[in-house]
């Protein structure tokens, strides 16, 4: 008799009752990837449009004046948060698929989270600084 996945030692009865699968996070990761993808769609259309019309070739004064406007600041912050979270989730899946050394994977996953958290915070701070101080 061949064992099915549900009878394997990777799926204990407690594990099955929790229903969170091998990662312990259930389908959260997948859902968050979709939610941020849906949010990215209008935000990236806005970003490309803005870069073409306001950012490309702009002088320092022109860029700061554009970025300081509340609507632009808000949309830029939303873009950074949504895209960076989406990118952190996405690169995590890629690391999980291709890195087979558990120790290396552990550090890579922490590195991804630290990198995107740090850069997102740096971007949000910069946008706020431009808005409030110039």
């Amino acid at each position: 008799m061949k064992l099915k996945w549900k009878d394997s030692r990777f799926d204990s009865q407690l594990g099955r009752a929790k229903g969170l699968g091998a990662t312990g996070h259930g389908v959260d990761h997948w859902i968050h990837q979709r939610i941020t993808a849906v949010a990215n769609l209008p935000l990236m259309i806005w970003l490309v449009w803005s870069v073409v019309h306001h950012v490309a070739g702009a002088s320092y004064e022109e860029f700061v004046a554009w970025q300081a406007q509340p609507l632009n600041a808000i949309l830029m912050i939303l873009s950074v948060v949504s895209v960076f979270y989406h990118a952190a989730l996405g690169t995590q899946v890629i690391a999980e698929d291709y890195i087979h050394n558990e120790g290396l994977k552990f550090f890579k996953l922490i590195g991804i989270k630290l990198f995107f958290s740090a850069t997102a915070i740096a971007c949000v701070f910069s946008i706020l600084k431009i808005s409030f101080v110039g």
Partner: protein
Amino acid sequence: MSEQSNKVERPLSPHLQVYRPQMTSVMSILHRATGYALSIGTIMVVWLLIAAASGPEAYAVFAKFAGSNIGLFLLLGWTVALFYHMCNGIRHFFWDMGYLFELKKAFRAGYVVLAMTVILTVWVWYCACPWS
């Protein structure tokens, strides 16, 4: 026999070295490649925002790089990758809702994605032509 019975029946991925590349499989890996490239490309956005917040000198360094041949080449790659990933992401949404799985439709949607990537990229660079 006992050795055999401990094995879990798991699905096998196609063996890439002997598997003929097809439009659908190449487009699938391209979604991953563009997503990864875009993730690295976020550094450009981080640089722009920190530079602009730091002052005119830092901004000038960024602007010089972005306007250089290397900078423009990276930006071109960024637009291609973004439009491909965006359009193919919409194709993913249809799959998630259960549509476009029939072989014919999967291929046709793929060609639409490729065409839209080219059209949007050309359109954006025509609008933002750095040499005009």
